[in-house]
């Protein structure tokens, strides 16, 4: 990973996770793992977030919330599915109220498997997401330039 030009902000949402991955995500922001050394800040505001970290599978009720959060985030944005439930539905796949992984509702860029996903894996996933974010940003600004010329 080359140097980072910007400080991406991170939004975390629990779709229908068991909490295990959520506390690991939160753990990443605390002294031992300290994701903030990449310039990342955990924010609660979707309008100011670049990365959406999402845990747990999608159920009937959280579907619209996830859609809304995703649409509220400004372009360019990346989505990281944390934990096996967010990737595929995991052990809860057969439950009557689970539709499947997060990608059944919104596009996912990085998948971090694990039950619960380890902080190291989450950080790795976020770093991957930063690269994708950078690519998306370049593509996005090119598009904007073209728009400006047209």
């Amino acid at each position, binding site marked *: 990973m080359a140097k980072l030009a910007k400080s991406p902000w991170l939004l975390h949402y*629990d779709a229908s996770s068991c*909490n*295990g991955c959520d506390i*690991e995500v939160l753990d990443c922001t*605390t002294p031992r793992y300290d994701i903030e050394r990449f310039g990342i800040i955990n924010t609660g505001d979707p309008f100011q977030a670049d990365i959406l970290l999402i845990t747990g599978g999608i*159920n009937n009720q959280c579907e619209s919330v996830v859609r809304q959060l995703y649409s509220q985030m400004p372009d360019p944005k990346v989505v990281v599915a944390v934990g096996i439930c967010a990737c595929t539905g995991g052990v809860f796949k057969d439950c009557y109220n689970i539709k499947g992984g997060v990608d059944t509702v919104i596009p996912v860029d990085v998948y971090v498997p694990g*039950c619960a996903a380890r902080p190291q894996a989450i950080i790795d996933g976020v770093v991957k997401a930063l690269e994708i974010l950078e690519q998306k940003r370049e593509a996005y600004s090119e598009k904007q330039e073209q728009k400006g010329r047209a």
Partner: protein
Amino acid sequence: MAKQSIVPFGPQHPVLPEPIHLDLVLEDEVVVKAVPSIGFVHRGLEKLVETKDYKDYVYIAERVCGICSFGHGMGYCQCLEKIMNIEIPRRAAYLRTIWVEMSRVHSHLLWLGLLADAMGFESLFMQCWRLREKILDMFDATTGGRIIFSVNCVGGVLKDMDTGMLLKIVDTVNEMEKELRPIAEAFLRDLSVGTRLHGLGILKPDQARLMGAVGPMLRASGVAYDTRLLGYAAYNDLDFEPITAAEGDSFARCEVRIHEIYQSFSLIRQAVEKIPEGPICVPVKGNPNGEHFMRIEQPRGEAIYYVKANGTKFVERFRLRTPTTNNIPPMLDMLKGCQLADVPLLILTIDPCISCTER
């Protein structure tokens, strides 16, 4: 009468790690009524018991919640052991006690951190979570998992600890006890923390009992009820008293939880001292037939496990009543009359675990 307005709170909110939604009916700044809507994390995993082998279902039971995961597995196993008349080896009972007390320490430290974060006391949050890492390291060393470690099985536990490991746990606990003191001091003596918590959300003992509050919330209202005194696992060999506080406010709830961490340290030390040698698991033959209600004390309070089995390998019904289910009704009562700005903090003081509640 002042004009009423409704403010939606959640599901995505900075102070909440988990989604819950409340409609707050306000008169000016004061809450007059709170209506919860839940179901954002409802998965329906009680239903899975009908299609999974009863021995395999332990893994699902442990995934009800990532914080009290070990306790859920243990409650489910104990319930089946009771139905099948299995006496687990004493060593297994002691190992379960050690792990479940370590879970309590980790859960309470996590809560203390979140409380500090909700008050904007960032450095205290970091300190609590830094300390919590030591317990997670011990989980990692003893079981191979940090959060969900699946060492329970019907008939005992799957992993043993050798003497070196047990002594290492005691060392860690002693070290943590020393490091916890300044943190506890900050919660209990700091002026700004005190001003924020004292007198906030008072729950009277009678009201707590009527609304069905459990766990630290009930004990903070002065009711000495701790399900561990029923003497399951190894608790009948260990020496402890329920920790209570008289005031019933948010500060009392914080105080009770801090003292429970010290209590858990003491219980772990006692268990390591008394643990007998022997096997850790007994073979289980046949299928369960019968029903039982099992009560255990989770970090958030009393949890009920109900299993009804019909002699096949598929259990007919598994029901889990978690502490937060019982703590939400008194919380709604406490919210009446408090300021809008206090709502996030007050919700946090019941230590809500939504994924437990909705399963």
